[in-house]
């Protein structure tokens, strides 16, 4: 077995037993990258020298007989919208093509403290806006299961790197499905945590009230380990919650007897691939077999989630992205003779089409005279959507649905039609609007393409999601299959 194909917990055990070294793991990962990166194209930046340096330090520590943590010496890839001190952080945008942050995001600091080996920064849809990673201004990332298909997005690079065994795990960010949809497309486990569970400090904002950082992993145990490491209150982020972070692996009992699972009927309507639907029903049957109680329920405001999202997210983005003006850092148009022209040309050229589309949508929604009709109304409907979940989750421990209506689609298939592209997030968006956690894990294949099952839970109820996901994983083998690259 190649070390790079193992999970973090498997590698940790081998490190502790001194069967391998951290340098060997890192080198195995680099060897894999050398072999497949040309086809997959997950990375915007690789940090090989620093990675080896970290790995050597971990080996020295093991050599001294010191105890190591669960992520110590294990390679990780971070989506290129999280700031890494001294390492290029681009958001896959021309606007930040040369931006080297003088500080690190809180999650990056936490991983550093945990001894993680950062091997590089992953490609994404520009500023995390997109569902296929086709909107990267640099290049498109490929789906390891079929390189003619997209890996999903916006965290496509993070998902593809894990699926292609170019890394052991990775971090992504999820504003409307940007972790779960690519995890589903690439056949890996992905978690969008409760809003406020993970610090956003250093995550380059797309939509502040929706953005959350979360892990991609090869199995549920790794996902729980990474989440245990990155979760927790951060005084630098006012929106991060104060809560006790448990060891989430303690929820991995495999026992779901009596677990109440709700099946929201609005997530099983027309437009979903029949093969996908069938796999979800299979999964529901599996849960019943394992002793869970599954029942239909309703989230009546589901149909409004997409329009509400496409008002709130662009509105926040239009303001968040105003700072990219060429004055202080990043791309600047040098030809302009005055400041206003410089602003306009810098932003016209620095941003891609989708980013500009959303900035314009958001600017419009916040404009004087339209605010009440759009933004304020959207906030009210958002509350209704949240109340749907509150009610459903009073009765049920977990809600279950497909992660995306289809498996990975082909390149260019939806690139020209924003509406079709937006619809691939139709099952994930509500979770961000409600601020609750959502986890996706592999539940089968349609035409050789992986399909993800989404589990949704109560705020700060990640433990329950891990419990359910782990039980399912223990009784299936979908997560063990590897793409043939």
């Amino acid at each position, binding site marked *: 077995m190649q070390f790079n194909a193992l999970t973090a917990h498997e590698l940790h055990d081998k490190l502790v037993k001194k069967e391998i070294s951290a340098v060997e793991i890192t080198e195995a990962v680099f060897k894999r990258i050398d072999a497949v990166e040309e086809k997959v194209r997950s990375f915007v930046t690789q940090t090989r020298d620093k990675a080896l340096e970290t790995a050597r330090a971990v080996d020295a520590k093991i050599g001294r007989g010191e105890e190591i943590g669960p992520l110590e010496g294990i390679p990780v890839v971070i989506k290129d919208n999280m700031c890494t001190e001294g390492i290029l952080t681009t958001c896959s945008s021309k606007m*930040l093509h040369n931006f080297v942050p003088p500080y690190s995001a809180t999650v990056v600091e936490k991983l550093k403290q945990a001894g993680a080996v950062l091997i590089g920064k992953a490609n994404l849809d520009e500023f995390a806006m997109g569902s296929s990673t086709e909107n990267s201004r640099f290049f498109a990332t490929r789906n390891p299961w079929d390189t003619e298909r997209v890996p999903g997005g916006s965290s496509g690079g993070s998902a593809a790197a894990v699926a292609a065994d170019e890394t052991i795990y990775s971090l992504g960010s999820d504003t409307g499905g940007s972790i779960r949809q690519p995890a589903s497309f690439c056949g890996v486990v992905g978690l969008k945590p409760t809003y406020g569970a993970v610090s956003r400090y250093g*995550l380059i904002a797309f939509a*502040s009230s929706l953005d959350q950082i979360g892990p991609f992993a090869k199995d549920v145990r790794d996902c729980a380990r990474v989440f245990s490491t990155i979760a927790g209150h951060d005084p*630098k982020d*006012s929106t991060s919650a104060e809560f006790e972070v448990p060891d989430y692996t303690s929820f991995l009992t495999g026992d779901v007897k009596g677990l109440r699972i709700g099946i929201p009927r609005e997530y099983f309507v027309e437009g979903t691939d029949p093969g996908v639907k069938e796999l979800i029903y299979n999964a529901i049957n599996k849960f019943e077999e394992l002793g869970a109680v599954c029942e239909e329920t309703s989230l009546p405001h589901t149909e409004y989630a997409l329009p509400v999202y496409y008002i709130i997210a662009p509105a926040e983005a239009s*303001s968040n992205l*105003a*700072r990219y003006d060429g004055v202080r850092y990043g791309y600047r148009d040098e030809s302009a003779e*005055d400041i206003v022209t410089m602003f306009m040309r810098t932003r016209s050229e620095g941003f891609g089409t989708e980013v500009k589309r959303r900035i314009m949508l958001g600017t419009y929604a916040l404009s004087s005279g339209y605010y009440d009709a759009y933004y304020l109304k959207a906030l009210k409907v958002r509350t209704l959507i949240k109340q749907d979940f509150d009610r459903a989750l009073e009765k049920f421990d977990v809600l279950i649905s497909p992660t995306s209506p289809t498996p990975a689609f082909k390149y260019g298939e939806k690139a020209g039609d924003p509406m079709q592209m937006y619809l691939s997030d139709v099952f994930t968006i509500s979770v961000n609007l409600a601020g609750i956690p959502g986890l996706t894990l592999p539940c089968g294949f349609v035409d050789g393409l992986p399909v993800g099952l989404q589990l949704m839970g109560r705020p700060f109820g990640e433990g329950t999601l891990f419990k359910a996901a782990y039980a399912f994983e223990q009784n299936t083998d979908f997560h063990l299959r590897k793409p043939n690259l």
Partner: protein
Amino acid sequence: MATQYEIVIGLEVHSELKTNSKIFCCSSTEFGGDPNTHICPVCLGLPGVLPVANKKVVEFAIKAGLALNCRIAEFSKFDRKNYYYPDLPKNYQISQYDLPIAEHGYLDITVDGQQKRIGITRVHMEEDAGKLNHEGESMATARYSLVDYNRTGVPLIEIVSEPDIRSPEEARLYLEKMKAILQYTGVSDCKMEEGSLRCDANISVRPVGQKEFGTRTELKNMNSFRALQKALEYEVERQIDVLEDGGRVIQETRTWDEARGITLSMRSKEEAHDYRYFPDPDLVPMIISPQWIEEIRQTLPELPDARRERYIRDYGLPPYDAEVITGSKELSDYFDEGLKHTGNAKALSNWVMGELLKFINASGISVADSDFPIRPASLAELVNLIDRGEISGKIAKDVFAEMQQKGDSPAAIVEAKGLKQISDQGAIAAVVDEVIANNPQSVEDFKNGKEKAIGFLVGQVMKATKGQANPGVVNQLLREKLK
């Protein structure tokens, strides 16, 4: 008959709060410093950073709100005000829109001896912007412009008045009282020259008796109390001229040109920004407990109005003097400190209002400066020396002049220079005899009923004693001897 116009003015005052760190990060708020040295990723608005509200800023804003008799919000939030300008690193300013920290207050001013109440609409918190330095006249014409972000994120409160002000003079008095209150409260230095107190004005005129307001203009760039009054006086005349010529006042923003003494159009209403305010999703709403408000209320010091009343009531100071002294916290603190060392408040007040203010104005040194030469205790001692008859009022002025130079105590100066008043009748009698002998004409005049002549004789004795003779004693002796 010519139309009489009524002036309507509302002021927007910006005051920097003197917290140690900025409103949303840990960078220093210190004024000055080399460009871009008091900055961090947060106040620079670098990609990925988040603001965290400084609790001290909220406390100071509440304190200011209480001092201005406002109702403090129990639920308040921050909003984003979106506009592009290179001194604003995020291209939005974090401010407060529809739920400001304080509302519905007032302050009182004294106009021609009458008290007048000016309503305060609201007090809200916001972050300051950076400073642009143009290599040229303006950003439009400059070869290039440099930005200093030291000031970016320095906490501000904006205080908006009701349109209750009826003259440029009232506007100045309002601003002076505002400055005093904020200084007493200790939330701001209010140094107009350093920009820690700034003021914009909305002004319109309407024929007396008309209910609706006239079209207003907004005036900016008044950098002193005097400039505020001058700009408003100019604008009143300009608007009346426009109306008298049959024209209409245009709603616009105008800037005060100090050198030319005129206001100039900056931008029209059509060019006004749509700020696209919305709640800042990076900051959580503030729930302000009544207990916290009460705790802050307990820390409020004696405010100018209360202190003025105390001066009038307890010390019998004339209202005008009390108003002037309490108008400046520094001066008033100085006076209070002096009162610890003398029981003669009225005399001390006279010295403060007279010689001390004259010296402050001439020297430009503030009484709060550590090198201010005349300590409050010294001035009080000077008052006591006069009261005890140890020096005359005339000598006291010389001693005061000496105190300005060296900062010595008045007793030491009197001692060193031998200026002590001579009240010993024996010592004075000899001089009186001599003066009577040398001035027969005046003696004659006095005896013939010319009362004035005694003044000349007293003067001669004072001259001969270098002013040290007690004038009362001299007078008494002269009268006895010329009976």
